[in-house]
């Protein structure tokens, strides 16, 4: 579960999780409400992201590799100029819809910036800290509790699934391609139960050691105003760019 976290000793890493979550959220909101015609503003946002990445010592290649999650949406963006309605332009012998071109740009620009901002958050904050941050941002305990268990159990599930697969293989089971689905379908109920019973034991052990719905945190302090001020430079700068672009246009 920690494969999106990039351990570095940077200033961004040391910020309290709640200020980072708030900054990324506000930044994304500014990006999304920017009109799609403001090309200069989007360039400015990209520069901001690059600055934060540099400050956090997250390599560009690392970010780009993980931003491929966005690819399906890029495919949609490629289709839009052909499928859109309205006025059309001819380019290299292809008839493209102007509205579709703007739509494609809109999805590509906003999607990419949002994905990069989230990836930077994940790269600089561990899962445990993220949950702590959500908790300090007054996220209901029920949700943070489910989240804590979910992150614990994902690893239990994956490990149990791997053990069951090795057990099948060592009994001479050699499925290819789609036929693997059969074993998965037959085993999925057993996998669920095995994981549950393992998780239940862990949970009871936690309860008997005093767990009461919230993980204990070392030094239960809220973020100092200095950290809020530092992290707010990202959304404030983005808002400044948006306003400047709107005035210039």
């Amino acid at each position, binding site marked *: 579960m920690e494969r999106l976290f990039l351990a570095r000793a940077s200033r961004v890493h040391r910020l309290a999780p709640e200020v980072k979550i708030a900054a990324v959220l506000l930044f994304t909101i500014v990006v999304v409400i920017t009109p799609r015609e403001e090309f200069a503003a989007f360039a400015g946002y990209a520069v901001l992201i690059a600055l934060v990445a540099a400050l956090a010592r997250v390599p560009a290649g690392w970010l780009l590799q993980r931003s491929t999650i966005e690819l399906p949406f890029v495919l949609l963006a490629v289709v839009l100029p052909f499928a859109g309605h309205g006025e059309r332009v001819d380019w290299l012998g292809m008839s493209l819809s102007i509205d579709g071109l703007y739509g494609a740009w809109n999805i590509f620009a906003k999607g990419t910036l949002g994905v990069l901002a989230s990836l930077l958050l994940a790269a600089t904050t561990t899962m445990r800290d993220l949950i702590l941050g959500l908790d300090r941002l007054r996220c209901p305990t029920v949700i943070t509790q489910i989240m*804590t268990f*979910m992150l614990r159990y994902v690893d239990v599930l994956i490990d149990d699934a791997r053990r069951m697969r090795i057990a099948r293989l060592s009994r001479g089971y050699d499925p290819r391609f789609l036929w693997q689905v059969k074993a998965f379908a037959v085993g999925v109920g057993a996998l669920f139960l095995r994981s*549950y019973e393992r*998780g239940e034991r862990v949970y009871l052990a936690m309860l008997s050691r005093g767990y009461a719905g919230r993980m204990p945190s070392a030094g239960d302090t809220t973020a100092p105003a200095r950290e809020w001020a530092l992290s707010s430079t990202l959304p404030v700068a983005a808002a400044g760019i948006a306003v400047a672009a709107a005035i210039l246009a």
Partner: protein
Amino acid sequence: MDDVRAMHIANGIINGPVSAIFILIAVAGLAVCVRRAKVDLDDRLAPMAGLVAAFIFAVQMLNFQVLPGVSGHLLGGTLAVILVGPWVGALCVATVLLVQALVFADGGLTAIGLNITNMALIGTAAAYLLVALLLRVLPRTVGSLGTTALIASVIGVVVASLGFVAEYALGGTTELSLGGVAATMAGVHTLIGIGEGLIAATTVVTVAKVRPDLVYALRAFRKQPTVAKTGVTA
């Protein structure tokens, strides 16, 4: 070829005002769920809720490639409803979506309201209504619990996908024909719903056979109260 939702709705697909309205809807819906879930969430349900969320998280990584550029994934709402009930179930799905948006950049942060409304609220509510109805009507066997899971999955998933169509009609950022979007979404998600239904049905049937005490949907039919709290839901 009209629409893609290979992952969840990303930033910029639906315009700002509509996204904002749906964030309010999602927050209001989740607030109700949180209040009701506090009553439900006991020592037995807490680890189950975590596991259900982890399970949904894991199966959502499986993306079905239905057409080139068009794919979708399992939602898991029905499984959650049967195993942990509607309130905690909706929270499980919402938690998965929140983690995916925050950590895996899957689904836009500003589109989180849309995603939660579709998958955690609409999909789960549809599944819950069907489960509650079918379990009353069908004979009380393990087989009919499986059938219920299958039917509720298919319909829940399709209803959730139509939630996207409604949002697209309200605030789509590009002009695509609505009929086409609706047909593609419903068609693709019927297939996904069948896949999801089979997984939900086998899981639920196994759990119901081995540990019936863990199946929330069967609480109302329990003859011998095993814990202090029984028969809370219909």
